[in-house]
């Protein structure tokens, strides 16, 4: 995945647990875990909005584009 989720880093900075965040944004712990571990295929704007609101951050703080990762993904696809 070329888009990486850095939710764990933001949570660490805010000293907030995933359980607390799940209660605040109204997303189940299981779904937040999927998001945090990078297994999610997409994120809704509403979820992103709630996360940014509760964490007091910008979407770019949670999601980053990894161009190196993209290169390796393309290599894998070519193989």
């Amino acid at each position, binding site marked *: 995945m070329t888009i990486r989720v850095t939710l764990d880093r933001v949570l660490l900075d805010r000293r907030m647990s995933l359980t607390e965040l799940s209660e605040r944004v109204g997303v189940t712990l299981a779904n937040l875990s999927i998001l945090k571990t990078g297994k999610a295929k*997409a994120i*809704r704007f509403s979820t992103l909005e709630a996360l940014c609101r509760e964490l007091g951050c910008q979407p770019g703080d949670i999601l980053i584009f990894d161009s190196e990762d993209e290169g390796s993904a393309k290599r894998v696809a070519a193989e």
Partner: protein
Amino acid sequence: MTGKTRNSMAAIMTILVTVVMWMTAVIGLIVLLAGGIELVSMLSGSAINLGAIKVDDHDITLPELVAGLAGVLVVVAAVVFVCLELRRILATLAEGDPFVPENAVRLTRIAIAIAITQLMRYVIAIVMGLAVHGTHVELSVDLIAWASVAALFILSQVFREGTRLRDEEKMTI
């Protein structure tokens, strides 16, 4: 539609499919047994006496009988197979989650089974025509059957895509 209605619908359909499956299997078995006795009688060239049933009057030829038995065997096997696959699909419907990849495969298998019965018709007709001189071979194309095969293949692809979309939706947070 509520889950309960869907489940009861699936339950009714399952009963219907099971009845059709067993009826086909039993009737098919009886026909195959009767045909088998007739075949043995023909091959041995003597009359077979089974209590009340006496087999000695052959009003069809040996190739016709063999072709008929092969046809019955294929059709019965196909109907039972289709019913078994339908029951599996209905079981997933009863559980409330029919959009699983396996159902796409099952629909494809049903389409292949129907296609095989149609192809067997042609094979039997051609073999009969080649093996028996003077046999009037009639090759007719059952458009309804082939349309069902096409429809099932398309439905199977729709199912496959639907399952993929559902999985994607599941992983959308």
